[in-house]
């Protein structure tokens, strides 16, 4: 690997962790779409700050972006509070409006500077290693490493220091307010950081990847654990995995790096969605299948118990008649009888089923319920 390749992977991994940390709280607060809105509307903040400072490297750009993120959230909430539009529609109204103003301003007044909409959406990760920090003739590495690293540290401090407050304000905002933890202030602090993260990251990776890193790894981690602390760690790891595997996917396919990384976040989610040990689709299907068999076994024992004494036992409890009486297909009846024999619930003599002691117990348990 060349130094540039390593640098790209490190930058992308840092951005992935930075985004997924906040993304966990966005997902839990059901605000995933807000990250999409913010990561686009911050552009207007950057454009306006750029018009004021005439520089693309001014810290005022970050400030403008953060402010615009908070304005976006406030506008959405304002619209929502009128109760004339729902929150999802409010996001859909606010975000294109602000984003399109930014796009018009750029195309009209800033056509000759390095502020183009393609770069905003897809980033320029491949070029990140060319933009370097040089001091006293020494090379201190790519600039993006410092911006994304700085924001990572900021987010880490926020999540670690305010972990307890974030958790309470997310789970039970009413109790948080009653205990004096100002959930509204925490909400806006979180939104400010999402805005800073979006602007700090999108120069490197683009807003689409920012959204992908913010939502997919936490959504995947949510299926893998039932503790908040582990959800944070898992989503960071899934973010790093998506970043690095995405880089090599792009290398193999000779395709867009940001696009490949976003694809890998989706693939990571899909893997978790299918194979998560308890909540994945496969685990659910297996559980349903087990329940079906368990239920059928109980039904079988009850059916036999019901008809043991009666005259019709001979007909009712014959294996070949089960499908008729229990409305089972012949294959399913054979399968269930097989399982029942193996687990010692019934015994078969000349095609006639009788309950063992365990089978009797199971049937009578069911009757007493």
């Amino acid at each position, binding site marked *: 690997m060349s130094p540039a390749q390593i640098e790209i992977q490190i930058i992308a991994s840092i951005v992935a962790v930075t985004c997924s940390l906040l993304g966990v709280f966005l997902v839990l607060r059901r605000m995933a779409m807000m990250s999409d809105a913010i990561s686009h509307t911050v552009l207007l903040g950057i454009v306006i700050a750029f018009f004021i400072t005439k520089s693309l490297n001014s810290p005022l750009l970050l400030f403008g972006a953060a402010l615009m993120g908070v304005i976006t959230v406030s506008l959405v909430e304002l619209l929502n509070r009128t109760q004339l539009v729902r929150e999802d529609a409010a996001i859909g109204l606010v975000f294109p409006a602000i984003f399109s103003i930014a796009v018009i301003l750029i195309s009209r007044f800033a056509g000759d500077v390095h502020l183009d909409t393609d770069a905003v959406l897809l980033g320029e990760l491949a070029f990140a290693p060319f933009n370097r920090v040089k001091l006293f003739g020494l090379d201190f590495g790519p600039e993006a490493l410092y911006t994304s690293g700085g924001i990572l540290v900021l987010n880490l401090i926020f999540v670690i*220091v305010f972990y307890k407050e974030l958790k309470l304000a997310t789970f*039970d905002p009413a*109790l948080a307010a009653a205990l*004096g933890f100002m959930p509204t202030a925490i909400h806006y602090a979180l939104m400010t950081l999402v805005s800073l993260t979006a602007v700090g990251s999108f120069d490197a990776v683009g807003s689409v990847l920012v959204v992908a890193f913010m939502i997919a790894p936490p959504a995947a981690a949510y299926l893998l*654990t*039932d503790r*908040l602390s582990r*959800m944070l760690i898992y989503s960071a790891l899934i973010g790093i995995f998506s970043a690095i595997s995405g880089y090599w996917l792009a290398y193999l396919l000779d395709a867009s790096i940001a696009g490949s990384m976003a694809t890998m976040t989706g693939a990571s989610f899909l893997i978790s969605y299918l194979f998560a040990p308890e909540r994945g689709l496969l685990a659910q299907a297996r559980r349903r299948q087990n329940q079906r068999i368990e239920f059928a076994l109980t039904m079988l024992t009850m059916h036999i118990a019901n008809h043991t004494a009666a005259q019709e036992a001979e007909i009712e409890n014959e294996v070949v008649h089960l499908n008729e009486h229990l409305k089972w297909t012949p294959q399913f009846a054979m399968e269930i009888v097989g399982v029942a024999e193996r687990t010692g619930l019934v015994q078969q003599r000349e095609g006639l089923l009788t309950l063992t002691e365990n089978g009797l117990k199971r049937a009578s348990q069911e009757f007493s319920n």
Partner: protein
Amino acid sequence: MAVNAIDVTDLTIAYKDKPVLWDVDMEVPSGTLMAIVGPNGAGKTTMIKSILGLIKPAAGQVLVYGKPYAEQRHLVGYVPQRGSVDWDFPTSVLDVVMMGRYGALGWLKRLGASERAAALDALDKVGMKSFAQRQISQLSGGQQQRVFLARALVQDAQLYFMDEPFQGVDATTERAIVTLLQELRSAGKTVVVVHHDLQTVPEYFDWVTMLNVRRIACGPVGDVFTDQNLRKAYGGKVAFLSAENGKH
């Protein structure tokens, strides 16, 4: 005479131009177990939330043990409606109960062994100790309510607000909760409960506030829980309610 646990005077809350609570007065003496009853939309939950400073009043004043709520937070425990939180949140029963200690801990301080011990103790009191490590999504409605109650217990408050603690719980849990509330009162605490089942008011509570946007009555159950007041609070519907046997 001892200071009242709650003094509400002239409280008015409006949603846009529609009053939810209209010039309400309410005095709750310390050491009472009080029900707030009234029809849907009468402002019961709003009343609790405004005492806790969660809703800003349009007019009026609320005092908790003679002072504004913000100065008395540490004396107050709160059990919101069970349905107000997301029970799929990735956390354990023990974690949720420990949240009751956050107020006493204050900003930035971390949970320690004493919080853990207090939470386990409270879980024991509500019969849920063996569930401490469970994910909260695995609980039944009654168990969720017990967990919320345990969380309020670890707040170690003087005054408790509970929003419909009997909503959707089975008879055993209801019995357990009532016993717990009565124990709290015996220990000198004041408990305010938003309640729906009029039949059980005289049995469970010693004080009652009847609301229907305005205050209909507030006082000892024996004095104010009368047919006349019920009719005023519920309009014509109360005849139907009291004719019904058992719970609705």
